């Protein structure tokens, strides 16, 4: 009973605690690839601390949506973070771990983020939201279909059940899994505002998507938005690593299994951060009108994956 409670607490706090570190590692690796020293991997924690200590300025035109959106967006990432397999696949969650619940809970966050972007009437927020909704609408098909591929292979739509599937580890359905993962990885980059979809470190009006929507935020609310964005990155990395490569997950709730699960998951996070850093250092951001092609490719790869299951 106590182990169960501890596991659930760990499951709940793991994403918000580790997410800024994940962003810090990616930035550090990116800096190394670009021959820069780069900030410490703990810099995002210090940034959050600084922002939480600052006053905020809110436009007089801002409505309740602008004020509430950071809390909603952050809460959504916490709920989703607690509902996906992180280090253990044996946690029994039948309420919020369904693939459609996950996809559409994340969509609630995106919806409020876009609303907050246009709420103050700023031109930057407006085009940021417009671009974000275009991307989200196109990415949603690929996102659902990649999870659906894994659901069809595992005969379950529960993400914990999918991560328990031993067929993948035995080498079955390699082709479908590989294609679904390729599709999902494109979606990860799109949903987490990474290259080639968005440049997370720029404020140029021609390129920014995510940053344009949160441009009006400052202080504590900006901290929540940044934290939620980091959480989202870790959530997608967790889904990618534990659904498509479901090894090293704790199969029972013993302390040793949980510790091993956390170590393996941390290594997986490191590998994904490395891949993202390599990608961001080696490719340029695509023109906005080329992005739908990439998202459609993600969708079609998943359709091929589903056909090949049968």
């Amino acid at each position, binding site marked *: 009973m106590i182990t169960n409670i501890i596991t659930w607490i760990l499951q709940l706090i793991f994403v918000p605690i580790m997410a800024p570190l994940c962003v810090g590692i990616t930035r550090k690796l990116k800096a190394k690839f670009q021959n820069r020293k780069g900030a410490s991997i703990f810099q995002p924690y210090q940034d959050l601390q600084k922002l939480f200590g600052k006053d905020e300025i809110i436009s007089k035109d801002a409505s309740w949506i602008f004020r509430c959106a950071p809390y909603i967006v952050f809460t959504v990432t916490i709920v989703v973070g607690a509902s996906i397999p992180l280090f253990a696949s044996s946690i029994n969650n039948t309420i919020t771990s369904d693939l459609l619940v996950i996809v559409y809970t994340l969509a609630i966050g995106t919806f409020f983020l876009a609303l907050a972007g246009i709420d103050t009437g700023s031109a930057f927020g407006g085009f940021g939201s417009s671009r974000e909704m275009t991307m989200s609408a196109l990415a949603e098909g690929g996102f659902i279909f990649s999870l659906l591929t894994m659901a069809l292979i595992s005969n379950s739509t529960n993400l914990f059940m999918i991560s328990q599937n031993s067929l993948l580890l035995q080498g079955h359905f390699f082709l479908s899994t590989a294609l679904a993962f390729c599709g999902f990885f494109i979606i990860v980059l799109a949903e987490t505002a990474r290259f080639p979809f968005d440049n997370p470190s720029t404020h140029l009006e021609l390129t920014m998507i995510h940053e344009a929507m949160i441009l009006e935020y400052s202080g504590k609310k900006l901290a929540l938005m940044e934290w939620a964005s980091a959480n989202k990155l870790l959530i997608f990395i967790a889904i990618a690593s534990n659904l498509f490569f479901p090894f090293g997950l704790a199969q029972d709730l013993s302390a040793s299994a949980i510790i091993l699960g956390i170590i393996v998951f941390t290594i997986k996070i490191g590998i994904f951060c490395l891949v993202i850093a390599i990608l961001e250092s080696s490719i340029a951001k695509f023109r906005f009108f080329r992005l739908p092609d990439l998202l459609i490719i993600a969708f079609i790869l998943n359709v091929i994956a589903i056909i*090949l299951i049968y």
Partner: protein
Amino acid sequence: MNILFLQFLLQVIFLTIVFLHISKKNFDAIWAYGIQSFAITILLLNSFFETGNISLLFVALLVLIVKVVLAPRFFARLIKKNELIFSVSTYLNIPITLIVIVLLCAIAFSGIFEPLTSIISSNQGLLSLALSTMFLSLFLIINRKSALSQIVGILSLENSIVAFAIFAGLEQSLSLQIGILFDISVWLIIATVFMSMMYTHFGSLDVTDMKKLKD
């Protein structure tokens, strides 16, 4: 060898053909072809281990030399010589290309080709996959404007046919394989010379430029 490993090799062949459809760089296409041919070599080696027929070992070694080493080297030299880093475009854009790939896979796995894929009932799924690799290779030849990509498509089609034959349990006789490999070797030389001449004359490997020959 384990059937799962053989299945994995066929899946690698399939993935390399999908990659050939998506890739924009000629060097990537050559690498993909090399990997695909290496998978075929391992499949042939497996046939040797299963049957003990020494001629199959000889065939596998020949395939390794011709398809994995020589062919990619020929193409790599051509690419370097003429600085053909990027492949010329396709007739259909990538999303539509992938939609066609979906349709071709669906056709290969449908009941239309069941008489062909049920030659060995236990391998029906694998034979359908091998058939879809054949279709995808044919589509690669049709869809690409670049002569180099078309030639890689033809070679990839040949690999797909070999893979289909292996999983269909068709006999891999030494004389037949040597004949095919000799054909491929000669054809490679002719194709490389043809591409060099084409590049010298037109300044590109885009086959649509050959329309000028009508004038």
